[in-house]
Every structure is written in structure tokens, then in C-alpha cells.
């Protein structure tokens, strides 16, 4: 098991949206490599991921290519040491750290700070 196991069981993941930090879920609920969707106070949505090393990422959940809230359901991967998620609909990849689309320069999604408390 990974080292973050024990703090994670009690700790909560928080995400900062326009209105400030919001609690999301227990860190232990996040499966490495599989995202969850977070409803934001303004009605928007974010996709929250944890990689196998324990690092957390949150980006906008709405896929800019289809307008559907699906990025949390994409498969994750890493290339050149950077983590990304591939949209489940048309498979474009988005960098989890900066939200840029790796397959089309014109597209990007917002990025949200995340922390464990």
C-alpha cells in the first residue's frame, strides 16, 4: 500500500472554487487513476483525480469538444512525467496540472487548486 494510506483514511479532500475552499470527499474514496465529478457552488463542475503516487488534481469536468460533463470518467495516463486524462467521448487528452488540451491547442479546461486537510 502507498504511504499516504494512513492520513488519507481520516483526511478530507478540499477544492478551491471562485467562492473559496469547499470540502469534497474523504481522500480514501479516490481510486488511483479514476476520477470523480464535483458539483461547484456556482453550478459548474470539476473533475477530481488521484494518481498512483497520491498526487491530487482537479480540472473542469465539461469536455470542451462536446459540452458534456464527462472528463472525470476518462482514463488517465502519463506522458513525459505529466499526468493527463483522455476524454471518454472523443478521446482528446488534457494535462491534469495545467488543463491544456494536448491534442488541440485551441482547447483548454480550467484548473482548480486541491488540498487534503
Amino acid at each position, binding site marked *: 500500500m502507498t504511504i499516504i494510506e494512513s492520513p488519507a483514511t481520516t483526511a478530507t479532500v478540499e477544492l478551491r472554487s471562485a467562492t473559496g475552499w469547499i470540502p469534497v470527499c474523504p481522500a480514501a474514496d479516490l*481510486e488511483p487513476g479514476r476520477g470523480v465529478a464535483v458539483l461547484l457552488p456556482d453550478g459548474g*463542475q470539476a473533475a477530481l483525480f488521484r494518481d498512483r503516487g497520491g498526487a491530487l488534481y482537479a480540472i473542469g469536468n465539461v469536455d470542451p469538444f462536446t*459540452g458534456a460533463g464527462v472528463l472525470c470518467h476518462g482514463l488517465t495516463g502519463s506522458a513525459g512525467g505529466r499526468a493527463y486524462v483522455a476524454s471518454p467521448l472523443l478521446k482528446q487528452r488534457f494535462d491534469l496540472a495545467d488543463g491544456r488540451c494536448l491534442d488541440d491547442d485551441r482547447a483548454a479546461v480550467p484548473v482548480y487548486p486541491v488540498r487534503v486537510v
Partner: protein
Amino acid sequence: MAASPAENSASPASPAQTIVLVGHGMVGQRFLEALADRGVTGRARVVVLCEEPRPAYDRVHLTSYFTEGATPEDLSMVEDGFMAEHGIELHVGDPAVAVDREARTVTARSGLTVGYDTLVLATGSYPFVPPVPGKDAQGCFVYRTIEDLLAIEEYAGHSRTGAVVGGGLLGLEAAGALKGLGLDTHVVEFAPRLMPVQVDDGGGDALRRKIEGLGVTVHTGVGTREIVTGDDGRVAGMALSDDSRLAADLVVFSAGVRPRDELARACGLPVGERGGIVVDETCRTADPAVFAIGECAQAVDGRVYGLVAPGNEMAETAARTIAGDAGAFTGADLSTKLKLLGVDVASFGDAHGAADGSLDVVYSDSRSGVYRKLVVAADGTLLGGILVGDCESYGMLRPLTGTVPPVAPEHLVLPAGAGGGVSLGPASLPDDAVICSCHNVSKGAIRAAVTEHSCTSVPEVKKCTKAGTGCGSCVKVLGQLVDAELEANGVAVDKGLCGCFGQTRAELYEIVLTLRIASYRELLDRHGRESARGGEGCEICKPAVASILASLAPVVGASGHVLDGEQAALQDTNDHFLANMQRNGSYSIVPRVPGGEITPEKLIVLGEVARDFGLYTKITGGQRIDLFGARVEQLPLIWTRLVDAGFESGHAYGKALRTVKSCVGSTWCRYGVQDSVRMAIDLELRYRGLRSPHKLKSAVSGCARECAEAQSKDFGVIATANGWNLYVGGNGGATPRHADLLAKDLSDAELVRLIDRFLMYYIRTADRLERTSVWLERIPGGLDHVRDVVVHDSLGICAELEELMAAHVAGYRDEWAQTINDPERLRRFVSFVNAPDTPDPTVRFVEERDQIKPEPVFVSLTETVNA
């Protein structure tokens, strides 16, 4: 060669040029392709007069219509759009009737007259019918065209016995056709042995035994004196030269062919003594504006060739000459490799040992029907040979002809275990060795395709050189050669699955199976590329490995449920929610309806569930019902109702078995000969849930009318009076492919056993997202290889394949029933982790034709970037 510039009025092609081709057979089409390759079609007007009612088709494989269920369309040799792309004017069903060489015009039967600068005759041959009494009676046929074949098929419908006059190559092809039609078949050959041209007495004996073993009666050393007719004027039998009689309802003459040189004769072009338009080494006739190629021509060596390979060479030569390039056809060797009635026969080089002082090395085993003879010179040079019953070594031996082979000839004829069976690698071949004789492609040319034209796979080399696209007998050696060449050149043929794994999917399968690896991470960290170990993996290898783990779950001890533990994070989104994601993020639900059979009660449940959840409802192309527009959190509720009513997952979301379609079959249909519905249900229940490299589809038809479209499926089954025929490798979709017949007249148990093996072998060796159709085309040896493995157990793995399938069948559990009963798994089915009861507001619908559909979304990428 030295062209003849003075009289070279026909070349090079100038814009005003018109080239007229008379005859659109195999060689004619090859000529057009050669013109197109050299860019001539772009510069010149090309007009084709085609006598037959359809464009060129593969005469060589005519018999596959009867034996493998090929259709006239399958036999076509003209790629879709070829004529239009190259601006070629093709006049189908309009033969040339006259040539005026003075005026340089050709007149067709329709009255069409075309002026030409260059005329190319490719009129082929006609079957020779010996002048025996009764030869024109009703029930007498020849066998050369698709029309002949259709006529024979129709007449055979009310015949029981068929006789073929002639036991040569074409006669045995015709016998194969009659056998394929289910007739009692006889072959009558005047010479003392079958295939007198290609084989010697020893080979003829072996061939005869094999063919008689198949139930064809062979009469050699007797001639046909008369065709006997009944009172109705129809064929009733034959009177033979030994005074015996043979009863037959149908007779096919296959006693040789004669060149169709009538047009040439009529316009005064010289023809050979035994027919054939006389041409020089550039394939020009005595008139420099007229060429003749293929079976209608008498080549410069005085021979008229009745095989397609020399014809193709002549087509190339004529096209080169017309394009202004050098080319010559001085003669060809008559090497042939054939599969006649399923018996391999090959002869190559100086097969009869005609050269002075030549010696024979012979191996003959009449028990197994194998005969091999090599002809060698005193210094050990291989001159030629004859192989009957097993032609495995043909691909290597033919190119070695003219050289001293690296091992003694006895090792080349003896079976493995008796001091023979040495396998010669293609490395031992000289560069000028011809690998593909159909298209005259040398080893050097194949190497150049790899080194100079950057081909990195057999299909690419086939496309680039045409090697392997004729009779197919060279494909195995071609594959070995391409691999060896790629390796030798250090061309980094990265066959790796993705950036994370250097192995192919098939190699990973073997690793997982042999090392009993049960987790993706372990596989990645131990067997991934150095740079990928410890990383996240990627969206390509995760589902591929998840599929391997699922296929092998019972054996390697991984969890069988695709949503368990680590596996959950590997699955494609569709597998993750056991449903297919739609364009607006909603999901569809496809319950299994085995064989397409459904009770009214179950239909009502589907209707009620769809109504209660407001789902769009549609009958699919796979004989079941799809319910669209469910949100994630509704999936468990919907499935609870469906599971209660006895439904289970249809795996529409998985790379797994989809449907086994059925027709009503013998239970209801007046034509049905077997219970196709029951078989479809049995098969669907057996293979449900089986994870594979790509989706698997199947169908079962109750008779040859094929209402279930089984021949477009990965494995398709068609009922026969004696059981079931199994077809494999069919595909609809973007690149449709007709399935190939794998085995005939199987019992229920034999059918299931073969499908078990076939599927497991596919799962084991296919690439990721490779349908069976593509796999079958890709793997070296193709269908023959797969048949060897799954029918004849040539790799000795059938028992293992069957065990793996048995483990799958025993381990099957319905994924949805397991999911709705497991709170841990159910936790995932929410739109928002922090607001489980809130539906996703981006999933919106509007109405159309009384049902919902996703609200159209207009996305603008630039806006999102600026936002």
C-alpha cells in the same frame, strides 16, 4: 533491351494517344494497373472492350464459388473506383468484332467504333471441346467463366452424377466444382496419369490416391468416344474408348484451351502453328501498333502460356513498352502450386528431369499420400521438382532452383524425424530468387520495399510490390523475409502496444498467462518500458490489459468482475459503468436477448422500464432493444428492475461477445434444415461475457438462404442437411469482409469445440482492437494457418484452448446482477461525489417523434480558451 525506335510509333504515350484494350480478363486488368502505375492513364485515353457481362474477375479462384461460398463479387479483381480514378472507359458486355489496321479502328458489337494509336489484345483462350458425337447435348458444359459456373450450378440442381473430360489442372478444378455441388464426380483422363503436364507417374499415383480418397472416381488411360443422350436429348452418360460406359447427367469438357486469336487472324496478323498471336519480346505483334498479351499470345519462345503468372509478366512488358520504358518477356517457367480438391500439388523448374544427366531424389509414402521429387544436376544444382500432398517446402525450393541448396537434397525431401524437415530460412536465398511467381517479385525487390520504400509490414510490402496478391502461395515466405529484413536493417519495428509497453498485445497475453500476473501495475512495473515503469500507464494499454486480465481471470486468479479493485480504473468508461456513454454524457442500456428470442412478458418489462424512466427506445441492428438517455445514478435502479425480470447484461459496452443473431430456422421456416434459434441461444449463452481484443459478433442461419447474415460475422454458422458450416472472419462496419468457410457439416459438439478453439486462439494472438477479419488477414498463413491450428491442432494447443474456454464458461457471472447487490460497487453510480442526489445539469433532452433526444450543444473551442 534494345527498343526498336524506328518503328516505335506507339511510344512514348503522347496526349493525343488512344490505347484500346480488347479483353478484360485477368491479364487485361493487370495491364491497366501497370499503365496506371506508370502514369500512362493520366496522359492517354484508355478504352476497354469487355466481352463478358462483368469486369475482370479472378478466374483462378473460380472454384471457390462452390467450395468456399465465394460470390461473383468476391471474385472481382477491380478495386472500387479504379476505372473512374484513372479515367478509363470500360464497355462491359461489348466485344470487339473487327479491327481495321489500316484505319486503326476497332469496331465493337454495339457498333461503337474507336480509333486507336495502340491496340492491345488480351482475349485469352476458349475451352477446347473434342469433336465427339453428342458434345452439344443438353447437359454438356465448359468451365471458364462465371456464366459457365452459374449454368453448371443450375443444371446440377437436377443432376446426381457429373463427369469431367480431362484430368489436367483445369479438369481437376472442374471436378472440385462438381464435388462442391454435391454430385458424384468422375474424371476421365486420356493420359495414363492425372495432371500429365505437371507431375510424373509417382506424383500422379499419389495425387490419384488422394483424390479418390475424397470420393472422386478417376479413370485414366481412357478416352471419351461419345456423349450418350437419353430420349429427352439430355446427357445420360459417356461411351469410353475401352468400350465401357459411364452413367452421368452432366458433363464438363476440360480438355485444354485454345488461344482466342480470331480477331487477329481476321485482320491478317500472323498466328502460330497451333494458334496464338505471334509477338516479339516486347509483346508486339507484326504490326507495331498492336500488342498481344496473356493466353491469346504466342510468346517469343514459341510457347502459349496457360497460366496467369506469365500473362502478368506480359502485361507488365507491354505497359512498359507503351510507357517508353524497357521491358522484355522472353519466357517463363511453368512452376505451379495448386490446391486441387484440397490436395496440394506443386511442380517447378525442370520437373520431369529433361536436362541431360539430371538425377532424381524421391521420397514417396503412399500411406500418407505424400510424394516429393527433386531433380538435381550432377554438381548438386537444384533443377526442379514435384511435390504432392505436402507443399510446405515449395515456397523455399522454387526460389532455390538454379542454385546449389545449402543442405543435401535428401534432407529436403525426407519428413522431419527421418533426417529431413530442415527448414531453410529465407536468408539462404539469393537476391534474384523469385519469391512471388504470380507477380514476378524477387527477394531483392522485397528487400528494397523494406529498405528503400520504408514498408514495415507484410500488408505494406504486398501493396508496394504486389507480391503475395496472386495465388497466395508465397505469403508465408514473404512474411519471413519481411521480418528478417526489418530485423537486419535494425528498422525499429516498434510492434509495442503503446508508449508504456514494448510488447504486442499477444506477447502480453503470454506473459500474463505464463507468469500468472493478476494486476496491471505489476505488469507495468515489471514488464513495461523502462520509462513507463512506476507511471500511470495510458488510455491504450489500460483497457487492453484489463481485457487480457478479464479473459484470463479464472486462470490467473484475477477478480472476474470488471469493476473490482484496480481493474475498475483500467476499464474504458463504458465498461466502468457497464453501459455505453452517449454524446451528452448520458448512458444506454442494452439487455441481452439471446438469439433475438424474447417472450411477450419480457418485451412488456422493457416497455415499462423505458416508459417509467423516460428512455428513448430503439430496436438495434443486433436483434435487441436499446434504451437510451439514462443518467449514471439511474443505471442501478433501471437494472434492478431488469435483473428482477430475468434480464442480464448484453455487454454492448464491452469488447466482448455482442449478439448471436438468428433466423427462425427449421421450427417455423419452410426452408429451415436445423434449429438455428436454439443453436444461436446456446452459443450466445456459452460465450456471453467473454472479453476479447475487439467485439465479437455471431449469427446462425437455418439454411443456405442466410437470413441471419452469418457470413458477415466474426463467427457465423449456417445449417446444412448434415449439420453446420462454420464461417469465420466476417465483418460489417467500415471495411466489410465476407467470412471464410472454416469447416463443413459439423455436429453440434464439433461446432462448439471448433468455435471454442477459434475464439481462444484469436484472443491469444490478436492485436488490440483487431477484429477477427483483420486478424485473419494479418497473421502469417491466414485462414490455412488458423485451420491448421484449430482443426488439425498443428501447434498442439487445442486442449489448452478448450480448457481456457471451459474456465470462462464455468466462471461466468452476470456483471449487473453482481453490481446491484454490492453497495461498494454501487457507490460509483453518482453524478457528483459531493452531491449524490443531484443530477448532472449538462445532461439535457428535447423531444422528437414522441421520444427524448439529447439537446443539441453548440461548442466553440475559442470561447472555452478565452473563458
